[in-house]
């Protein structure tokens, strides 16, 4: 088996021979990807050292027959599968009433879980969609108010451009959500107050306070007031809108 010229190649040869020799189909299929040249090469190198049997098994002409053997084995397996005894006790796949009740219960439980999951997903998507795409939502009002502040000349001069806006900072450094509170006035109309922050190009910071009232359709649409107050002394106030 050992070649004087290519000792390392003979090892590969051994492996091929072993794989074919034991007729382990799984292992043979791995070797199918090996090119025929690779297979032939060690065989030719080690012709002297090989027994006739190994040559017959590992040689290229026999490779075809190996596949044929595999197919035969598959056929055998298929044939065997046909004679497997039925395991359901001869009822021919029919379930008893009790089993059917159990199955129906299982199906109902799984269906319930699926519906629950879909419902929760739907609720979440609805919440995020309403929040992001509707003008009367908290995020919509925040966006609107920020636009007004950024467009205001007095604020621009006081803070310096560009002006960045952010909400309340959480413990993890997120500032995506402004603080807000809702209340109902004596006339039964809903109001919402909101607070967020601005930071200008000069590094000066300011706080924005605003209140919105709902319209007849129950949607927040108009500012009752909107003003910007500088955070540093003398806490100058710039009123952008005051419709009280």
């Amino acid at each position, binding site marked *: 088996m050992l070649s004087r010229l290519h000792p390392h190649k003979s090892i590969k040869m051994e492996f091929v021979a072993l794989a074919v020799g034991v007729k382990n189909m799984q292992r043979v299929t791995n070797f199918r990807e090996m090119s025929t040249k690779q297979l032939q090469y060690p065989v030719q190198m080690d012709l002297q050292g090989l027994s006739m049997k190994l040559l017959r098994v590992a040689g290229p002409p026999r490779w075809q027959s190996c596949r044929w053997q595999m197919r035969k084995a598959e056929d055998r397996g298929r044939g065997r599968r046909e004679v497997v005894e039925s395991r359901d006790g001869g009822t021919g796949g029919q379930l008893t009433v009790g089993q059917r009740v159990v199955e129906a219960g299982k199906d109902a439980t799984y269906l319930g879980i699926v519906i629950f999951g879909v419902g929760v997903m739907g609720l979440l998507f609805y919440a995020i969609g309403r*929040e992001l795409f509707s003008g009367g939502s908290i995020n919509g009002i925040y966006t609107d108010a920020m636009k007004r502040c950024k467009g205001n000349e007095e604020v621009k001069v006081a803070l310096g451009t560009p002006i960045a806006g952010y909400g309340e900072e959480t413990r*993890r*450094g997120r*500032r995506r959500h402004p603080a807000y*509170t809702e*209340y109902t006035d004596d006339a039964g109309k809903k109001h919402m107050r909101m607070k967020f922050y601005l930071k200008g190009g000069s590094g000066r910071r300011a706080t924005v306070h605003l209140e919105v009232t709902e319209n007849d359709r129950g949607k927040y649409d108009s500012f009752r007031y909107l*003003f910007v107050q500088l955070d540093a002394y003398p806490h100058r106030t710039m009123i952008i809108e005051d419709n009280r």
Partner: protein
Amino acid sequence: MEEYAREPCPYRIVDDCGGAFTMGAIGGGVFQSIKGFRNAPAGWRHRALGSLTAVKMRAPITGGNFAIWGGLFSTFDCGMVYLRKKEDPWNSIASGAVTGGVLAARSGWAAMAGSAVIGGVLLALIEGVGILITRMSAEQFKPISPTEMEDPSQLPPKAPPFGGQPAYQ
């Protein structure tokens, strides 16, 4: 006081990276300990050893993957904050999508698009949960009587409802 004045942004990336690593390592540790336990040969000794080996081998990898995701996500989030000059849920959704896309960059355009969509939807869901939670917690702090809600003192006094001069000091 310094804590409050500091901008969270560039530092947040490191925080998020570490937080994600911890989360991934703990979650991966729990998962791998169970998997290693089940896959080990019979016997308590083997099972315990298999569990321990699996945790030692795989949990840091899961943690590392999480850390990559978290760090990249936070980096993109900060980039969005810098570019858009605004902090809102869109930032995190967009950076989730970009992170998903970038991490799948080696698998081709189709895989990138798929990963980006998954990342965006996942972050949108997380944002949705956050919004629902803020909504619920805001309900608790609703003032009971409207008389509590005086107009802020920064504004000039309101004009009287019927005729007459406003009360100037």
